[in-house]
């Protein structure tokens, strides 16, 4: 256990890192999207547009902060804060490396026995931000957007939770660090099929949970303006953007940790350079980068679901597939191993 002040400093640093990463993720995303759509993307502010995020930040802060007259003021102001606070706190439980590897400190903020549940719980509370923001705006588009979002998040949480179950059953622990140490793929080749299914189901659910394309119905411009964001502007709008990107990063880190060995380096490299998988942070960040790229790639490639398709997909296919993976894992553990 770290002393309290160490934990607090680490939490503070993590927040700063996440927010900085957010700022540059927006730039990276716009550049990649530009590439994929045969245009330039932002490239005017500084070399390669590297100063663009700073310009955006300054704009957001100084822009007029509109509070809608008929809004529920308290809730309206509170909603984006809820969103960002829970988005930031979820990341704290994800380990960035083996114990004591970061200059003698542990590369995580908290090491919980129930880390998996913690991440799920905190992200599930985050939905209140979107939900309340839409309601407090007192506007029909915002309300529709928030209702869509909450229905979507509740529905896809089932698939998410069920596909995590396979990993938990195989690893026999809820501690994220121990899950990484066990290495779920190394347990038995019999478990590969259910794990693969669970992995795919989990990635899809995670994309839906963070409201990314093709599941970005809460802010479907063509239908409901900007969904729950319609009445927000300035810094509050920026807070929502922040929480969306932080949630994306948490999802990427969570997927990497559960299914892809988290902070551990590739097996081949460990053979070539012994000790390389003990390096903190770097492997996790690399794995996260792959998923972040995947998210952006999907956004450039796929059209948006229609609402009933979204619900049908979640309840009739994803849920069943995740359930099957769970049952299969249980059967393999009970009868084969």
């Amino acid at each position, binding site marked *: 256990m770290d002393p309290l002040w160490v934990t607090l400093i680490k939490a503070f640093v993590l927040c700063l890192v996440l927010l900085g990463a957010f700022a540059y993720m927006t730039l990276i995303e716009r550049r990649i999207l530009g590439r994929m759509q045969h245009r330039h993307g932002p490239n005017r502010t500084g070399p390669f547009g590297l100063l663009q995020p700073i310009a955006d930040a300054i704009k957001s802060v100084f822009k007029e902060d509109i509070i809608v007259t008929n809004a529920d003021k308290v809730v309206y102001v509170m909603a984006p804060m809820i969103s960002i606070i829970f988005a930031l706190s979820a990341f704290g439980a994800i380990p960035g490396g083996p114990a004591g590897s970061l200059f003698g400190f542990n590369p995580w903020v908290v090491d*919980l026995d129930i880390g998996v549940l913690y991440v799920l719980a905190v992200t599930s*509370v985050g939905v209140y931000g979107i*939900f309340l923001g839409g309601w407090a705006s007192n506007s029909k588009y915002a309300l529709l957007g928030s*209702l869509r979002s*909450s229905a979507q998040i509740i529905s896809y949480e089932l698939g998410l939770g069920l596909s995590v179950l396979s990993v938990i059953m195989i690893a026999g622990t809820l501690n994220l660090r121990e899950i990484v140490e066990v290495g779920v793929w190394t347990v038995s080749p019999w478990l590969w099929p259910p794990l693969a299914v669970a992995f795919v189901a989990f990635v899809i659910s995670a994309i839906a949970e963070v409201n990314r394309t093709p599941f970005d119905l809460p802010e479907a411009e063509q239908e409901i303006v900007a969904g729950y964001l319609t009445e927000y502007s300035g810094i509050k709008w920026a807070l929502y953007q922040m929480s969306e990107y932080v949630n994306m990063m948490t999802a990427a880190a969570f997927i990497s940790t559960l299914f892809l060995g988290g902070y551990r380096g590739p097996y081949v490299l460990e053979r070539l350079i012994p000790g390389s998988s003990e390096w903190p942070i770097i492997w996790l960040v690399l794995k996260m980068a792959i998923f972040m790229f995947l998210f952006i790639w999907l956004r450039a490639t796929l059209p948006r679901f229609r*609402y009933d398709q979204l*619900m*049908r997909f979640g309840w009739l296919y994803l849920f069943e597939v995740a359930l099957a993976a769970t049952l299969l894992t249980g059967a393999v553990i009970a009868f084969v191993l």
Partner: protein
Amino acid sequence: MVTFVILAVVSVVGALGVVLLRQPIHAALSLVGTLLTLAVLFVTLQAHFLAVIQVLVYAGAIMVLFLFVIMLLNIEQQRKEIRPWLRWVAYGIGLVAAVGLIVGALLDPRQAPDAAVARAALQGGNALLIAEVLYFEFMLAFQLVGVLLLTGMVGAVALVQRRRPPPGGVSAATAREAVLTDRPGRPSSHPVEAGGR
């Protein structure tokens, strides 16, 4: 002790908010606040598992559904109370019960077990301890909860999704398929879909 007092005050204020706030959404939010505070309280008691379950189940699932229903039905603030005196009677009873509980707790000779003892008992992964009790001692009850959930599900579907087969004998399976496909132009009976429309 200081933490406890702060948390206790916040949770009690939240609970009072549930009763006193007139706007249903505010009352529900107040309840969320109380539940989260209780979760933190559990953390200070080293009951991590319980705390997370509290957040995951109550704040993350049940209250979201509550709010969802409140928003969907767009419940107006209740303007006229049917029996105003009843509210005061209820306050009175609540007050008496609270005072009785506090006095009873203070007078009880058996004081709370030593916190250190409780903490020692919970060390080393209390998820495992809970699992042992749940899956061994209360295995039967655990299975029965499954039957209970099934009953609730069947009942809800039976009440909500009622489709008479059209004359000409379309089988129930087709009727069901039609409901699930929810083709554009048909009125939706699915509560979630109806909300998003």
